[in-house]
């Protein structure tokens, strides 16, 4: 049932104070989740808190090992739309 933080975490500190289970700790190079403590926020919040504030796509994996914030989910630009969005921005 545990979420997992992987090495693309930029150590921004945003998730750590939000975890209701106090499962998040500063590991050597980035933050990590103690798999024994993480509850997935069940019973506390509708959405997992770490996933809801993390600014980095792909830094947190859900219990099935899939990126909880997949590519394009935080920028609001789906990968296939990227070239078009870039052209639009560069024309500004």
């Amino acid at each position, binding site marked *: 049932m545990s979420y997992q933080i992987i090495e693309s975490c930029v150590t921004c*500190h*945003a998730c750590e*104070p939000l975890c209701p289970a106090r499962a998040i700790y500063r590991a050597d190079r980035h933050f990590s989740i103690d798999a024994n403590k993480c509850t997935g926020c069940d019973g506390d919040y*509708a*959405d997992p808190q770490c996933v809801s504030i993390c600014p980095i796509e792909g830094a947190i994996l859900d219990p099935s090992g899939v990126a909880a914030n997949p590519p394009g989910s935080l920028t*609001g630009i789906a990968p296939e739309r990227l070239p078009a969005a870039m052209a639009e*921005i*560069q024309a500004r």
Partner: protein
Amino acid sequence: MALQLIGQATDDGAAGCTVSGCGGSSAQLSHLSAQIREKVHNHPCYSEDAHHHYARMHVAVAPACNIQCHYCNRKYDCANESRPGVVSELLTPDQAVRKVLAVAAAIPQMSVLGIAGPGDPLANPERTFETFRRLSEKAPDIKLCVSTNGLTLPDHVEALCRLNIDHVTITINCVDADIGAMIYPWVFWNNRRVKGRKGAAILIEQQQRGLAMLSARGVLVKVNSVMIPGVNDQHLEEVSRVVKAKGAFLHNVMPLIAEAEHGTFYGVMGQRGPTHTELQRLQDRCAGDMNMMRHCRQCRADAVGMLGEERGDEFCMEKVEQMEIDYTAAMQQRAEYHAAIEANREAQKHHSGERFVAVSAIKRSQRETRPVLMAVASSGGGVINQHFGHARAFLVYEASPTDVRFIGHRKVDLYCSGGEHCGDAESTLARIIRALDGCEAVLCSRIGYEPWEQLEAAGIQPNGEHAMEPIESAVAAVYDEMVKNGLAEHRTPSERLRIGA
């Protein structure tokens, strides 16, 4: 942070976002009540004149953030960048207090401590307020200020007032949610991530509520806006009107800093920042509505020293731990130093007052002359006291038949670090010349032969004749000279074309 960019951020940036913005010219401040003037007269960020004399510092105690700005990469840990949101060492409140006391003992010009990030100070309320609380006990003479993106501001107004924080900076880039959606992809609100237009609408509403609440309590609020061409450049005039109506005291429009190597969304996507001219035009348009601050240096979230000066390295925690400080003596020394600064400023006021006589005399001669931009190298004190090759940033002034006014800063990479003949001085000089685009003279204490020639060739007249003189009167004197020599006549259309090209 108000930072803006954490990556870009607060000091030079954003992330640290906002603290660093600063204030208005003395003319702009003259209509303010005596009570407000008393609050800003020694704040380097709020008063254009004070920034020549007083120092500020930011402490990086607030890493977390609750929104995403497209100009921020949230990777604050970069020692090589100097812009808002960037810091090299994250401090605990305890370390921050020690550091502030050490700096305030070593730099007696210190008058202000700000918390600007590297995240949003109000998304880290315990760390931020703990730092303020302990400092107000240990160094009551230091003014405290904070920068925020505003999302949770209404919840903290009470606490800010209780701690006597009398300056708050809010970064407000828009008052329209459709524009907001192009700047803020999401906000974290009521324990959920809210994306797009909806998230931007929440942020805007909270910012405006917080602004109105603070103004009602008599807290000075500065609004920082990041000018993003094609996104909010046409919209910031309206922002200026709205925030003024809600009681903001100063509006600071800053240029977007976006480079691919900063790793921000805008940087990577190729969003451009404004040119000097675009920025200045917008600042002029907003100036009709309220005080504009033009001397902001977009400082790092851990900036230390006079604006534009970076002394953070002298005060890393390792060194601070070694220092022995007599707090009471340091406070006494600061009080004496500040009194001396004030006496000095009073004297300068008299001196530069004469200039207005000289300048208006030109007007009486009925010659139609045009305004001229000049760059000035100064390391502080309100005088021309810096060698051209040592200037990391130039102050730009506009001289016209009626007055001399401060327009803004132009940052350049340091071109000479000591020796007369450094390695790639040439390309750096070319960069400086580009940064000084639009200026017709550069005033400094001294300048080498080679840069002199190249500046002249680029149409920028170097001038070392006014070393150690107050900036404004020197600029007025140079303008006077240009007028006498017929160099400030209105340009013919063909000349204008050539210059624009």
